[in-house]
């Protein structure tokens, strides 16, 4: 009896242990994480599939919507299940500070000089230059909005509007709508009065606002007619216009541009393969294909130079589009993201 119960117990413990550590020894395929939607479809065509064909090993791709906490949780838990991840500028800076990312081997990438300055860091490699801008359906509105002031003008343009949920971009756009010149936005936002001013401006539009989180959502909202305007990642608009024959328009003045970067998670199982993948995606001949699918600027100088002029015109990096655009102030958001997000969430909840 006793013997049997001991066997039962030890059997149960062994079964439990086996359930807890499933296949700890089996190797995981290289896992690349990007931002989903038609952007990731494009990356799959020109980066993931060709890289898998070249190395003869499968590449898994997953999508996320950002959040430094997700990366931190994966690394703190040990043995992260992602290898290469595309992150936003402040996630790159935060994670680099906190030791969440592997160091980049710039020799594999053709040296730092072959990239735009803003795309180079110790633990990240610029992947795209992208913009957040107003988009509207050109088939429904002949005379579209020209500025963020128009975005706020519900008399002239009735209907709901969508913005990305969170204080980043939202507060900048509110100040632009309130008449702050592009060059002074971050100076105003750095003062408590400026933050109050932005929230007061948001109050005006609050009943008409819908919030999105994933980059594919604004396209759906716009296509279904749920909203009249939305903020959007610029490349996806060009992407859906080409792939589904839509006539969505982008408003460049007052758009905010930033650089997204590839990073490798600290201690990732396939970190060498991930480095090779990033090098593959940074080769001019591979990267220069991206604008055919989706209109993002290219951080590799030789790749950007190889893009045809008609495709150039849609990129955030085109001089005409940059003229009244604003560069995201990464340092401002690194310091203030937590306090402002808390206030933003409290504002949303009221």
């Amino acid at each position, binding site marked *: *009896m*006793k013997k*049997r*119960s*001991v066997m*039962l*117990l030890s059997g*149960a*413990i062994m*079964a*439990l242990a086996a359930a807890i550590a499933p296949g700890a020894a089996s190797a995981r395929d290289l896992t690349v994480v990007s931002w989903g939607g038609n952007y990731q479809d494009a990356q799959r065509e020109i980066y993931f599939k060709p890289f898998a064909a070249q190395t003869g090993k499968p590449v898994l791709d997953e999508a996320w919507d950002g*959040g*430094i*906490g*997700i990366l*931190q*949780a994966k690394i703190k838990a040990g043995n992260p299940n992602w290898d290469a991840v595309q992150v936003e500028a402040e996630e790159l800076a*935060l994670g680099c*500070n*906190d*030791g*969440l990312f592997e160091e980049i081997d710039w020799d594999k990438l053709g040296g730092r000089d072959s990239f735009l300055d803003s795309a180079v860091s110790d633990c990240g490699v610029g992947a795209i230059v992208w913009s957040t801008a107003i988009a509207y359906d050109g088939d429904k509105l002949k005379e579209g909005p020209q500025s963020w002031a128009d975005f706020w003008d519900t008399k002239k343009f009735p209907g709901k509007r969508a913005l990305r*949920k969170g204080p980043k971009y939202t507060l900048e756009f509110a100040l632009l709508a309130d008449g702050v010149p592009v060059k002074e936005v971050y100076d105003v936002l750095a003062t408590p009065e400026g933050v109050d001013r932005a*929230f007061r401006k948001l109050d005006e539009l*609050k009943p008409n*606002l*819908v*919030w999105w*989180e994933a980059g594919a959502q604004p396209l759906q909202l716009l296509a*279904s*007619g*749920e909203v009249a305007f939305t903020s959007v990642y610029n490349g996806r608009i060009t992407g859906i216009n080409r792939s589904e024959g839509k006539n969505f328009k982008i408003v460049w003045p007052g758009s905010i541009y930033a650089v997204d970067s590839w990073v490798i998670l600290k201690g990732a199982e396939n970190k060498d393969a991930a480095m090779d993948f990033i090098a593959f995606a940074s080769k001019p001949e591979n990267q220069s294909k991206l604008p055919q699918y989706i209109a993002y600027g290219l951080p590799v100088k030789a790749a950007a130079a190889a893009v045809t002029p008609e495709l150039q015109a849609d990129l955030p990096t085109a001089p005409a589009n940059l003229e009244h655009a604003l560069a995201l102030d990464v*340092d401002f958001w*690194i*310091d*203030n*993201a*937590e*306090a402002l*997000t*808390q*206030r933003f*969430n*409290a*504002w*949303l*909840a*009221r």
Partner: protein
Amino acid sequence: MSEVSFRQRVGALALVAPLALFIALFFVWPLVTVLKESVSDATVSHALPTMVDAAADWNRQSPPTAAMKAALVTDLRGIEDQQLFGDLVRRLNSAQAGFRTLLPKTRTAVDKSRETTAPEAVDLEEIDKRWSNPAYWQAIAGTLSPFTDQHLLAAVDLSRDGTGAIVALGADESANLTILLRTFWVSALVTLVCLAIGLPYAMLAAAMTGWRRQLLLGAVLLPLWTSLLVRTASWYILLQDNGLVNDALQSLGLTDAPLRLIFNRVGVVIAMAHILLPFMVLPIYSVLITIPKTLMPAAASLGAHPLLAFLRVLLPLSLRGVASGALLVFMAAIGYYITPALIGGAQDQMISSVIAFYATGSANWGMAAALGIVLLAATLLLYMVYGWLSSDKTARA
């Protein structure tokens, strides 16, 4: 005799041991960890060990002492582990915005002068003029204790001011209580809707026999086997302005313009009620089928109107199922996250979305844990009230 009973006891224990182990591993241990996470605050004292002594007798009003400044330089030079430094920066920045850029800058500067300048001789204010602002020093001094009630207080919109007194946070700064109340309110609404649909449905199913009953039960069970996300996404498609529901209403001429059914409370309650309905129907049904079918005819033969017979006989007997169904639905509802996030507007987000923000967005696990604890405590309280009410009923009966 005693030998046998001992062996029997061991045998019985061994039989439940896997279950006990499972509960300890997947229930007790995570709960204890979460509780610990919500009050533990050892990062700063761990990263800045000499600062703990240096700041011990600082009164937090006067300018920081020379010893504190030297201790900061010594400690910053002593941090080898980059992830520990990252934790330090994150913790201090959540107490006082600005440390994100201030600390790395200071660390680089004091590292550079490691060979040439003694800790006492470093002029911090020359590295960054923010060090002359006492708020930064107060933030460091305030985070040196290894335990904190800061997260738990913040979870219910309270905080400690510079002197340590507990004060309420302004409406601008925090809305956790509002969101917590809303969570309970939405859950109560969903429970009511589920009850209004679920009780008659369960009665119908219990009254039927054969394939009709199987069909009715299958209709409840089928959604249960479909992914939560799929069901939520389907409601998203059905409820939108140009969705099936609005198209149908307009083509029937019932409405002129589309009803706002999505991104508001109505949509959230509809979708959540649909998803949680099985948890109401099944417990009620399981109680109803145990009630003898002869009771209602018996009541009628004694002259009771069907409605009276329902109210005096069937309803009281089914109350046990109603109570457990309502409890199941309510408790499942207060933890909902994905449905309000997709179907709801900004004013319909529930407490889980706040927890998710702290856990995945800002990596502030202490705050996420504290909110989880508050939610758990509120739920346990409600459960106790339920237990007290139901035992009271049985006593009276």
